[in-house]
């Protein structure tokens, strides 16, 4: 075990090279619906239990199923209303279980990125070969069902190994959502040396963290999103920022939470200098336009 992950260097949030998004936008905004499949009876992982109760663990299983049966269509319609294409963090087994959802998202030109096979199969305890097999399976599954190879990764249930990002970069990925250290994209060091970056995917804005972990009231969540946006938009004048709302159809699409979410989306998309985009487009744009300058700036700041 290491004292630090050694995935990135310190890069102070001042005097950075000025980033400008397309059309001179100050803030790149993306929404990442996690479309997940949780199993009723997953095999036991020795490092993490999938469910608190002996099977059938109804509270956890049923609300997540609700997300797919009921919630997906709600959030999809809402995002469409505000001109937002989702960037889906996908439990890739869902391509087999619920192809209807995949089709609906394909029709809307949404992005799919890998979130493992099931959200009840963790990375913990996998050998490097096993983890590679799981990652390659997830990539191939998305490519087979959508025709496009995914560029991004969010480890299933945020379960990682020391080589997770190395393996994903080696499999041809270009960005990760697993790191929460910055409000701008940053280069991530992996062993292949390929250009690989972190795209901000805020755990603080994540609806499951807000609702299920921090027990936030829906209208307060809506206010938190607006406040998060206001500050990042203001700071984006100095150098372009990224705002992400990671969501789950079993949280944000519940009837008592839709209004607060809609108001927040309406607020954000009502601003002019916002680039409403996807994770992949942010990654591509950053790599094409700023990766080298940012890398040089980070190197320079290590020498002070």
């Amino acid at each position, binding site marked *: 075990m290491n004292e630090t992950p050694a995935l990135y260097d310190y890069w102070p949030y001042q005097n950075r090279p000025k980033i400008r998004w397309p059309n001179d936008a100050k803030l790149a905004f993306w929404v990442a619906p996690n479309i997940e*499949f949780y*199993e*009723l*009876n997953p*095999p036991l*992982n*020795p490092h993490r239990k999938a469910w608190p*109760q*002996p*099977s*059938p*663990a*109804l*509270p956890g*299983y*049923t*609300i997540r*199923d*609700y997300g*797919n*049966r*009921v919630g*997906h*269509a*709600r959030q999809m319609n809402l995002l469409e209303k505000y001109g937002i294409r989702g960037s889906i963090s996908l439990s890739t*087994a869902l391509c*087999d*279980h*619920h*192809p*209807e*959802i995949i089709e609906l998202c394909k029709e809307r030109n949404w992005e799919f990125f890998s979130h493992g*096979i*099931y959200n009840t*199969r963790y990375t913990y*305890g*996998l*050998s490097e*070969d*096993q983890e590679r*097999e*799981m990652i390659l*399976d997830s990539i191939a599954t998305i490519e087979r069902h959508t025709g496009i190879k995914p560029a991004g990764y969010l480890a299933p249930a945020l379960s990682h190994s020391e080589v997770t990002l190395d393996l994903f970069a080696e499999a041809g990925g270009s960005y990760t959502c697993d790191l929460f250290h910055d409000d701008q994209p940053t280069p991530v060091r992996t062993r292949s040396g390929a250009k690989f970056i972190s795209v901000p995917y805020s755990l603080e804005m994540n609806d499951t963290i807000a609702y299920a972990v921090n*027990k936030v*009231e*829906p*209208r307060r969540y809506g206010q938190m999103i607006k406040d998060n946006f206001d500050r990042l938009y203001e700071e984006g004048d100095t150098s372009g920022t990224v705002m992400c709302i990671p969501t789950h159809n079993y949280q944000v699409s*519940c*009837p*008592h*939470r*839709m*209004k*607060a979410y809609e108001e927040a989306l309406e607020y954000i998309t009502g601003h002019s200098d916002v680039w409403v985009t996807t994770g992949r487009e942010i990654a591509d744009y950053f790599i094409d336009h700023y990766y080298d300058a940012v890398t040089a700036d980070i190197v320079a700041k290590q020498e002070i």
Partner: protein
Amino acid sequence: MPLDPEYLQYPHRRYGMDHDRYDWSMLSDRNPVSWPNNNRLALWVNVCLQFFPLDQKGKPFPVPGGMTMPYPDLRHFTLRDYGNRVGIYRFLKAFDKYNVKPTFALNTRLAENNPYLLHSIMERGDEINCHGLHMDALHYGGQDINEESELIKRSLGRLRDLTGRDIRGWLSPARNESANTPELLAANGIDYFSDWCNDDMPYQFRTDKGLLWAMPLSNELEDRFILMENLHSEEAYVEQICDACDFLLQESETQGGRILALNLHPWMLGQPHRIKKLEQVLEYVTSQEGVWSASAGDILSSFCGQQP
């Protein structure tokens, strides 16, 4: 040391669910329904009338809302008993004031121990469902099937004797089940149960003993969940129910009838500082156009009557 190769095998990776209990279907793809008199939102007020034993065994876990202190935990016993003595009568007044037709989910032990309360509920003519024997008689994964079978037989048989009614609906204590619970319920004459909260509308649930209906009793909108588990304010409870009501009414304009299911506990919302919040919710919801207050059984009957 890698994990067992089984960890990367996925025997249920296939179309539909990873079990055979019900079919996969998206709510937005289903045929729209409409409620009687062209109403669009059925209001299902479900009142849990519960008995929490003082000598709680906590098997396999202490029930949420149950005893937490060393025996005798008088504070929690009496706080819960408060609901059955005081809170429930505040509820009944509120229901009558706003013409709300509640459905009662009764622990059989409470019906046995409190004939006056049972009589009060019976006299109203409202629907009564079985909520298991009591709050410490949990149904759980790994439970001996004979033990559970006895528990269900006894809970339903006794409640049927006491009420002289059929008792069609079931809600497990703590909504906890074993893998056998649905079969045992179907075998004991239950038509619908409300433990699986994975939909906003009823759906058919398979058991080896025939079909059950799963009724969508939202856990997220439950008073206990919002106030006791999430520790939200009473004001936020009202806001959430009103926002849900608005949203479901809006959705019903294009997708057909919806259900607003409010699971309530008189020991929670029946407190003097909270009853007004329930009244506010009932006032708001019942004053919306297109709302039909009905029992769970009537909602299900109307729904079933519209299925092909």
